[in-house]
């Protein structure tokens, strides 16, 4: 089983649309939506839920108001401004550090695991699919991404691939999305912001010694920046495995809950199939060393 993580420096580059398209074209695979802060794949992938669990992200302080003596020490010690004047915890600000517990003379505060979302594994026509939905204001973490990736292994049936829709950015959740993956495919756009974001996300992949590949989406929007991206990839040794043209039809299809593949968009479909075959070839090459 090989795991391919699709990432992007920022959101909205077409990463999920690409993964959703590949979910039709690639056989014998499982899918994991690790973009836990803004999950989208579940909108296109309906299926029967096989497993559904509450996710407890981190601990949070709870004050027992019956025991609290209102001495104000907890509020003064808290560095996150998470305790109000009325000596109440402000859950969205609490880091769960427990400093308040340590200073409370009345033992009125305790740390408790707080539910911050739910994880799901579903059987879909396109394969077993693992994802998570966070509660409002809750934050994704490496732990949640690890849980999403781990959940899928419980349903492993000799699939050949795991396609991971990774989270954008460069932080902890991205790192948890790509560790242990066999390849990282960065989806980028030829925009001023796209190139600088791509550089950073590839640094992360390199740091983890995972072979990195690049797909330039909407490449014809700006030929100069596309050339700059290709130059950057050449210097960095990241093969450009796909160049997908800008096509308003992709958005129109999406508006009907369809990937370009389902909408019968031949040009884009051919390019995505070509991207996959190049990825396989390049991975074989990389393993040949």
């Amino acid at each position, binding site marked *: 089983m090989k795991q391919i993580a699709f990432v992007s420096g920022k959101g909205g580059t077409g990463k999920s649309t690409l993964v959703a398209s590949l979910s039709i074209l690639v056989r014998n695979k499982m899918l994991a939506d690790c973009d836990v802060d803004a999950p989208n794949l579940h909108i296109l992938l309906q299926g029967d839920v096989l497993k559904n669990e509450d996710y407890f*992200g981190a601990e949070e302080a709870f004050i027992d108001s019956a025991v609290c003596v209102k001495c104000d020490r907890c509020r003064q010690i808290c560095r996150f401004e998470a305790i109000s004047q009325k000596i109440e915890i402000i859950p969205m600000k609490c880091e769960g550090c427990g400093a308040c517990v340590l200073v409370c003379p009345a033992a009125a505060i305790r740390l408790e695991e707080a539910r911050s979302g739910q994880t799901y594994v579903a059987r879909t026509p396109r394969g077993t699919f693992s994802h998570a939905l966070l509660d409002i204001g809750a934050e994704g973490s*490496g732990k949640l991404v690890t849980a999403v990736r781990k959940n899928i292994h419980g349903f492993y049936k000799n699939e050949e691939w795991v396609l991971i829709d990774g989270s954008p950015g460069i932080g*902890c959740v991205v790192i948890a999305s790509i560790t*242990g993956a066999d390849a990282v495919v960065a989806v980028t756009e030829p925009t001023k912001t796209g190139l600088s974001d791509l550089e*950073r996300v590839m640094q992360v992949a390199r740091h983890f010694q995972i072979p990195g590949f690049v797909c330039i989406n909407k490449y014809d929007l700006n030929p100069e920046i596309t050339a700059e991206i290709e130059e950057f990839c050449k210097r960095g040794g990241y093969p450009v495995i796909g160049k997908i043209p800008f096509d308003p039809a992709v958005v129109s299809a999406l508006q009907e809950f369809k990937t370009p593949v389902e909408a019968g968009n031949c040009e884009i479909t051919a390019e995505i199939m070509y991207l996959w075959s190049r990825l396989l070839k390049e991975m074989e090459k990389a393993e040949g060393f």
Partner: protein
Amino acid sequence: MKIGLTSTGKTLDSMMDQRFGRASYFILLDTDTSEFEALPNEASMTAGGSGTFAAQVIADKGVSAVITGNVGPNAMNVLKAADIGIYRGYPATINDNIEKYKRGRLERVDQAGPSHFGMSLKRNKK
């Protein structure tokens, strides 16, 4: 002598877990008696700092050598401070790795692999 291996399961037939901090299990083996213990890795359930947490557990268990895939710089510093040898395991079963270790076929690692937070990269200034 006691050695620790990161494992995907509880038995010696399980595959090695390539992760250290977020490994599913630690197999702790006494090389003299061949007795072993499978320890669920509580560190895998922490939101952050799983590497240091796991290394602390391993150190507290009195292990002299660790066989795993990738150790991040934080965990490596803990293991080094505890004088625990680190060996790079193969993506094979725990038994295979133990055999290779006994025959001196595993490479000793001194260089840290990638980690979550311990990255030395700083942002490029534009």
